[in-house]
């Protein structure tokens, strides 16, 4: 097998592995932002999800129960965010940053005893059965959460485009006044959207502790939650484009390790910066000084 194929396999495998938490967090943020609210606290939700999933998986022996708990922790943080934001004269960006620090802090505090013990991991689906090459098979070990994430991507799109809830959510995100005139409770819709977004972000966190890297420690997340929020803007508030952006970001992140595995070690740290450079490059290439962001929910456009 040539080095190039090795790198390509590494990038594909890495794309799927690394993109999973990005995918869940960005889908969650996409839902929340479609209702006209920004939740910057998803980094805290992610870490909280990772800790609670690991703890429950360790205590009960069931990783799936851990995933569910992570989601519930996310719902709780989302509800807290939504409740704070519905108070008068509260800014959702400031609340988000506070809740990000809060979530990370609480997770570190509660997670102290979980550093060290080993919890059962999530299973992987082998999509490389057709190949005799061990490398191919190991690269195509697809984690179960990624598969769920794929289903969720199209599920979220269906929800937004084809269901009553989606239509109401988009109305609230595009014009709170119109929604109020139609008798919808804007704060309540945003509460549910923020809770649902929190659920997805919590599940994304469980991936970090229960699959890859697969243990709980305080350096587990290196800002994936924040990057995922930025990916939503990059993906222009479209769930399917969130998937594409997550895969692109994951693949670029895997480039450094993949090159290292075939012996290219010079510039390792430089290659690790690829996702950021790539994101910046695409943002600059697609930006315009004169044009407003297409696809952005109108309620987010207002300075509040």
């Amino acid at each position, binding site marked *: 097998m040539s080095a190039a194929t090795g790198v390509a396999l590494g990038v594909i495998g890495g794309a799927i592995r690394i993109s999973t938490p990005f995918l869940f967090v960005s889908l969650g943020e996409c839902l929340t932002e479609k209702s006209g609210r920004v939740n910057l606290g998803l980094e805290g939700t992610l870490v909280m999800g990772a800790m609670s999933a690991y703890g429950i998986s360790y205590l009960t022996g069931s990783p799936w129960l851990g995933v569910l708990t992570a989601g519930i922790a996310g719902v709780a943080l989302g509800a807290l965010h939504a409740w704070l934001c519905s108070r008068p004269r509260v800014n959702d960006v400031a609340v988000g940053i506070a809740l990000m620090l809060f979530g990370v802090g609480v997770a570190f505090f509660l997670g102290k005893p979980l550093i060290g013990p080993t919890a059962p991991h999530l299973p992987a689906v082998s999509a490389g059965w057709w190949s005799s090459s061990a490398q191919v098979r190991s690269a195509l070990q697809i984690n179960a959460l990624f598969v769920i994430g794929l289903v969720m991507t199209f599920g979220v799109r269906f929800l937004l485009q084809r269901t*009553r809830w989606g239509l109401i959510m988009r109305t609230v995100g595009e014009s709170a006044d119109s929604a109020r005139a139609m008798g919808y409770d804007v704060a309540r819709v945003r509460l549910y959207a923020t809770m649902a977004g929190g659920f997805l972000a919590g599940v994304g966190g469980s991936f970090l502790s229960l699959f890859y890297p697969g243990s709980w420690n305080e350096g587990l997340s290196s800002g994936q939650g924040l990057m995922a929020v930025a990916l939503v803007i990059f993906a222009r508030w479209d769930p399917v484009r969130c998937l594409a952006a997550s895969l692109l970001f994951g693949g670029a992140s895997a480039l450094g390790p993949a090159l290292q595995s075939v012996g290219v070690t010079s510039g390792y740290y430089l290659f690790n910066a690829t996702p950021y450079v790539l994101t910046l490059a695409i943002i600059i290439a697609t930006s315009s000084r004169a044009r407003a962001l297409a696809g952005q929910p109108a309620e987010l456009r207002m300075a509040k």
Partner: protein
Amino acid sequence: MSVADADATATVPLIVPAALEAVGLSKQFGSVRALDDVSLRLERGTVHALLGENGAGKSTLVKCIMGYYRADVGKVSVGGVEANIASPRDAAALGIGMVYQHFTLVEAMTVAENLVLSRQKHPFIFDWAGERQEIAKFMATMPFRLDPSKPVHTLAAGEKQKLEILKQLYLGSSIVILDEPTSVLTPSEADEVLGLLRAMVKEGRLTVLMISHKFREVMQFADEVTVLRRGRMAGKGRVADLNPESMARMMVGDEPPRATGTRQERKRGDLILTIAGLSARDDLGMPAVRDFGLEVHAGEIVGIAGVSGNGQEELLEVLAGQREADDGNVRIGGNAFRARRGEMRTLMVRCLPDEPLRNACVGAMSVAENIGFRRFDRPPFRWAGTLVSPRALRRHAEALIKDYGIRTPGPDAAISSLSGGNVQRAVLARELSEDVSLLIASNPCFGLDFAAVAEIRTRIMEARNRGTAVLLISADLDEIFALADRIVVMSDGRLVHETPIAAADLGVIGRHMAGHGHG
């Protein structure tokens, strides 16, 4: 209601109840009596106009009927039965719908989505193909049609207004209340929409209550009229028995409408403003101003007429330094002008933008500070090199407050606490208190009451008489006709028509505004 029923109405008029009747409504907001014992009777199958100045209580009356507000005193009955309307939802259940002055459509969604959204009941999962078929069937019974799959932001203003009306019919409303339905339309679009509405009323499908301040539309399309002044009923009657003068008298009371300052005959002065080949894009990157050229001389007012959204806003932003041009140049008295602060000072360019509180003021800062924006960093306001003297600013402002009759609690009050007319007076005081060679004004009287309008127009006319070149952008044709020496029409970003005021023809200008100048 069928035609036969309508005939029955005509034969036994005393028994048939009004479609909607409000009796003795009063509403107090704090110390302001917004509505004082107002009654209104809306007969079935008629178009009824509600006339009045800003603040006369038209909106309050309508909002009490729709259930946004609860009247302190008085009752509303629908079809002769007393109704307890506590919310717009209750109104909708009684078949009363409202079309607001500002569109309540969700711009990012399609026509079909907006119609479906307005409905009270939705299935959990939408079958959009089926919904579109249903809507197509509904549209087939309507006198005007729209493509259900088109996103609303791609519709012209007239189409959006039609969609608002379609929405009410889709919801099955039999009484439709319209709040200044034509304020965003071209004259021909307005005629079309009102004509269609009237046709539906005459077919017996609808009863319409329309808030308006345009006499022409009231005369042409309404059957009956109720006039409000300062929260009280000032008159009512059949339109056929009235004329614009009698209605205007009801609206403004006994005081005659004040004239706009007199235009002094003067020779055309030096060339001041030259715009050549100017092009600019809008926020979405689409061309908004296209190869625009214009000259304005000292002592003349050039009015740019046009329907809002045809590039006037972008043109103003380029001239005010808020937007960069793609191409072309602007010269003032022969000097290149890029709207820098220094250039505005040396070339004496001043600007009255739309929405002055947002575009020309800092709301939380005081009246004195806002009045001082142009000069606070120059003597006598600057002292000891870099310090600003609040006392000098305040004294300067006090003089202008007196001169311009700005009603404010004092020079230190936040300018955002002033009424719209007084904010505009304060901006006018700032912009016109020095020598001005070019004044650029955009919709300077939008949303102001009669007295403020007359005063601000007089100030602009006086500036012209003193030799200032004035570029006036306005969506209000009456304003352009009242002030301009020369009228140009802007359509789709281009200058499409130019005429001196003496030769100006309303019909020709309207056609050019609608983009049919050559058709």
